[in-house]
């Protein structure tokens, strides 16, 4: 099959957010050590049919955000504050058995490494039917044809035979497809994809991304895309949140954000990646590494690596200021203050 890229839909969103995360704060506590705040007051909305991106480098809190929403953080050693309202219910206040009922049915998740998120000793087909048995109370016999249809829908050739395969018998791309099939089994209204294509080759990545685009368009599922790859975000997400050190530093529609990045971090990221679609130009790296942070409580965490710091950056905490569809947390944005 050869296909042209489809453009993400931007028009079919409802007005009411399906998921509304407010002031999410995740603190990891260890005996004898200072508590570490991995996610620090993150708020965002996801509307039906919308694709929202969380972008950032390792340690920015993007994965912890998704695990907290899904209730998948370990029970001990962390504190989760804030709210994550899904369809009128605060997911963070749900008990573990209530959450289990929702996970897989209303909200599904796709992880980075399909091999470690599939059970290696259970055939893939069984792992798909398991979801249907658990949530739709179907018998295995009734669920099997559905599972086959799901595998077929995500583009796995010869699904009848593949149902009996174990994960190790599949290629990386096919495993990721199987995982997507499992996530789609109960037609969830929200799909969280945590680096779904990072472990895959670029041609397979293109296949998976176009599959996700198709699914969002056909089913109206809301998608939260967590990635470090700005290219993936540019083609897929309607709204992009850039995270740094556990906080959102910039938010905007993809056209606005990439066309006119305002935060020095977003701008720096875009200047530091080699581009295929432009003349070769010298790269401007962001100095230092992601661990060179200041505490958000008394400064801007990005100040030590910033290309244009001013005095106030190391003295006060910048606030996330919203204006229209954009939000920015910076004292001295790129292009000057508006």
């Amino acid at each position, binding site marked *: *099959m*050869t*296909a*042209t*890229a489809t*453009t993400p839909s931007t028009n079919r969103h409802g007005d009411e957010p399906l998921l509304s995360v407010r002031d999410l704060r995740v603190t990891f506590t260890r005996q004898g050590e200072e508590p570490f705040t991995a996610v620090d007051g993150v708020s965002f909305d996801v509307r039906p049919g919308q694709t929202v991106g969380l972008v950032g*480098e390792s340690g920015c809190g993007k994965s912890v955000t998704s695990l907290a929403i899904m209730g998948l953080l370990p029970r001990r050693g962390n504190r989760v504050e804030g709210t994550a309202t899904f369809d009128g219910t605060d997911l963070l206040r749900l008990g573990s058995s209530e959450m289990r009922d929702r996970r897989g049915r209303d909200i599904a998740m796709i992880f980075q490494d399909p091999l470690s998120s599939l059970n290696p000793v259970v055939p893939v087909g069984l792992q798909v039917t398991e979801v249907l048995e658990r949530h739709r109370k179907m018998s295995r016999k009734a669920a099997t044809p559905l599972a086959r249809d799901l595998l077929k829908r995500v583009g796995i*050739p*010869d699904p009848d*035979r*593949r149902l009996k*395969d174990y994960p*190790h*018998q*599949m*290629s*990386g*791309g*096919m495993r990721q497809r199987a995982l997507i099939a499992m996530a789609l089994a109960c037609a969830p209204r929200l799909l969280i994809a945590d680096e779904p294509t990072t472990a895959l*080759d*670029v*041609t*397979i*990545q*293109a*296949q998976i*991304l*176009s599959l996700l685009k198709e699914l969002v368009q056909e089913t109206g599922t809301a998608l939260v895309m967590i990635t*470090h*790859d*700005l*290219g*993936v*975000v*540019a*083609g897929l997400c309607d709204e992009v949140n850039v995270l740094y050190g556990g906080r959102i530093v910039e938010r905007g529609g*993809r*056209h606005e954000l*990439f*066309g006119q990045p305002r935060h020095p971090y977003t701008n*720096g*990221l*875009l200047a*530091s*990646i*080699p*581009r*295929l*679609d432009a003349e*070769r130009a*010298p*790269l*401007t*790296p*962001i*100095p230092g*590494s*992601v*661990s060179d942070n200041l505490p958000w409580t008394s400064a801007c965490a990005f100040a030590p*690596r910033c290309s244009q710091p001013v005095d106030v950056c190391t003295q006060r905490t910048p606030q996330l200021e919203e204006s229209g569809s954009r939000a920015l947390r910076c004292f001295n944005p790129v292009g000057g203050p508006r």
Partner: protein
Amino acid sequence: MTATAEPTPAETPVDERELLVDARGVKVHFPIKRGVILDKVIGHVYAVDGVDLQIRKGETYGLVGESGCGKSTLGKAILNLEPPTEGSVLVDGTDVASLKGAALRRRRKDFQMVFQDPMSSLDPRQSVESLLVEGMKAHGLATDAKATAKRLRELLAAVGLPAAALKKYPHEFSGGQRQRIGIARALAVEPKLIVADEPVSALDVSVQAQVINLLEELQDEFDLTYLVVAHDLAVVRHISDRIGVMYLGGLVEEASADDLYAQPLHPYTRALLSAVPLPDPAAEDAREQILLVGDLPSPSRPPSGCRFHTRCPWRQETRCDDERPQLRVVEVDGVPASHRVACHFAEEIARGEIQRHEVTATATVQDWRGEDEGDAIGPASVAEAEADARRTSSASSQVTPPGP
């Protein structure tokens, strides 16, 4: 300048320099063994299957391809870390493939490697000083203590680390700094050629650019020649003078970085380039993607003829299935003689005389030959290949013959 069968381009200044690496007909085949006592060889993984590669002094050659295409194995074969099954590799005039033992070890001074994961390629129990001195001692470069200390300081300064780093251990550094240590270790023995296998893919986006820039600076400073093996096309294009695209053990296209991206001629290169997501929404919406169907076939049973014909949207009924194309210069306007491609129909495709067609899913299943073969990206190790072969042979009666 003539476009003859002799594949030695001669246009740009780089092309006139002396050859540092001249690999001819390199093959690396890994045996797939079975049986406990007899260890019978039941097949081979054709990781690298007949590659000619020339690298000139001072240039950066980029090898790209997807996982399982043999790019890393080829890089190792050039250093004789993976002895080639066939073919010759001349590095600076010496046939590396024929060297053994002490002679090989001595020659290794001239070619060093930088690995992908700096955490696992640095011994966690060795301080930076001991990591850097080890190679120098082995090659007799660390005889004078004072000179060695000076050299260490120079090395650290060259890769942008403070002198205080000498007494520290790898875990005390960030990923980008560790990669700098790995580069300093390679530089310590004053090599001529550095093979960098995915040097930035384990690093954070903001740090990647630092290491890419560092590699470029060091090349100018120490007159190095690089062979960069990577899967990230944007990185390879940025850093390389010339690029070779690999698919299933063979080079399918070779050109200067700008030519390759300006006018890709091989269908696989086109698909590969069109699959890279661009960090520009307008370009993303406008671009036409060539989505390939299915995965890479197993390198233990590569398709006949052109290796890419099973997934090629431009495949023709004639030649593609049974005749393996060789790298050749194509006669298309504006394509220089240094741009070589292994496709029978490159001219026709470039002129738009052959249209892209749908590769149907059924054809892919048949061409896969692998309903029970499992990992279509190919085995990552001999053990995996063995398991793979066992499965295949037990189900060989069910294997569907390749499509028409």
